[in-house]
């Protein structure tokens, strides 16, 4: 693709160019969302409803038990809050875009994306912003704060920063895996399949890792790191880490999956044939 490269650019120039493009994309998304205000609010209601559903699940379980493994009620509430927070941040930046990828391919609109003089993965992954998701991400944080206060958790700045870095790594894992699913759909199925796959996979990520044993736990920690994405940040935050390997593993996994998704993406692009005309 070297011929398409405009002019030799310094890294800083390149960065500011992409930052400019991205801020324009944000502006567009905000304008679009504000065009459908009721819908915008209703989606937030939907997200909050499903979030409270998970919280009801936890409270009902803890009506009948004291602990799940070593996890107490407020620790598990913390898990649910953190899971919601990470998922909503991911949703704000990437979700809609990933879920629309199969549709771009099916309708041939991908041609247009390929012609734009920017990195295709950049524009495909980030062209829409789901503004409401950032608000609902706040509800996840609020629940975490409440659970933290019930646990008398003290917040040291350094732990907070570490927690945010781990969350960022988790968001990258969400993104990489869903983008991977979406890339696979270059060949096969429809958008619903991707969304369905994503939700089912990440469904288990909010459960306490101790519930899983043996092969299942190994696969979903060292292979598909679903049991790390929420559990590790929360364990770090509430001083429940058994050792530091979890941190390293989560960070390494986010890098590995980003690379895997990039390889798969490039491979899929090579095999793209336009659908239109």
């Amino acid at each position: 693709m070297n011929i398409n490269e405009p002019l030799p650019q310094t890294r800083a120039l390149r960065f500011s160019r992409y930052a400019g493009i991205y801020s324009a994309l944000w502006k567009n998304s905000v304008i679009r969302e504000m065009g459908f205000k009721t819908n915008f609010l209703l989606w937030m209601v939907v997200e909050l409803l499903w979030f409270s559903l998970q919280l009801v699940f936890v409270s009902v379980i803890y009506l009948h038990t004291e602990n799940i493994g070593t996890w107490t009620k407020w620790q598990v509430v913390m898990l649910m809050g953190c899971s919601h927070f990470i998922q909503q941040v991911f949703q704000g930046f990437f979700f809609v875009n990933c879920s629309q990828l199969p549709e771009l391919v099916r309708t041939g609109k991908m041609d247009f994306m390929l012609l734009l003089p920017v990195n295709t993965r950049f524009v495909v992954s980030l062209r829409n912003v789901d503004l409401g998701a950032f608000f609902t991400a706040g509800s996840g944080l609020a629940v975490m704060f409440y659970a933290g206060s019930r646990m008398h958790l003290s917040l040291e700045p350094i732990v907070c920063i570490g927690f945010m870095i781990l969350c960022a790594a988790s968001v990258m894992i969400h993104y990489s895996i869903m983008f991977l699913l979406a890339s696979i759909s270059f060949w096969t199925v429809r958008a619903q399949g991707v969304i369905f796959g994503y939700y089912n996979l990440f469904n288990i990520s909010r459960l306490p890792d101790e519930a899983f044993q043996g092969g299942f736990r190994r696969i979903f920690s060292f292979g598909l790191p679903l049991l790390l994405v929420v559990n590790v940040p929360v364990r770090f935050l509430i001083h429940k880490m058994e050792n530091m390997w979890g941190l390293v593993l989560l960070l390494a996994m986010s890098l590995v999956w980003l690379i895997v998704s990039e390889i798969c993406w490039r491979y899929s692009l090579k095999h793209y044939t336009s659908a239109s005309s």
Partner: protein
Amino acid sequence: MKKYLHVFTIGLQNTMAYRFNFFTRILFGFIPLMGTIFLWKTIYASKAAGESISGYTLQGMISYYLVITIVDAFTAVSEDDWQIAADIKDGNISQFLLKPLNYLTYRFTLFLSGRAVYTLVALLPVGIFIMCYRHSFYIPVHVSTLGWFMLSICLTGAMQFFLSYTMALLAFWVAEVSTFIFILYAFEYLAGGHVFPLNLLPPAIVQVLDFTPFPYQLFFPVSIYLEQVSGAELARGLVIQSLWVFVLYGLAKWTWSRGIRKYSAVGG
């Protein structure tokens, strides 16, 4: 009748084309199911052997979730509601107004054919999964239970369909129905007993829920299979379930007749 038979076979062929989609759907669906089962195993591990939670032993709890998977395979509305909403939004229903076809019967036939294929495709993976848990899987003592269970499943299917159909018809009034559909899903999930058996809730709440259709959409057939209801209670439940089918059918009919007055063919 013959024309709907034709619709049925077309539906079969259409869904068969996406059998790979179905298959991956079922396989992905096992992941949360395994998660829930593992979660309950861990909870029961901290209790004395054979101790039960609201009448469920560990075996009972695992069976509960497995039977839910079966009922779901038979009755869950998968894409029908989205398609109906899209038909209205894109103006596709105009053609049905001209043809001697009843749209409700047409959609119901498609729903049946979709479920038939899905159940067929799901048979193998669900069968294997249950085999893995055969030591925990509850087998009804009475043969008649299976008959009542199947009857209740049919009623559940009808309820699910009519409710989703009515929800999708909101597309006559609002541009975007997905939010409403997801709100309904949330209630069906929780109050239907998808997330946990309803008798885990405090009794007062269960009594309130009993006035809504949701427990009859899922929890009731499952408790028939697990033989938690019998005799007069079973009969009463089936009567209420049938009443809900009629109510929801009426609601679907009514919404359609209101909506069609509002309908202006888009792109027509």
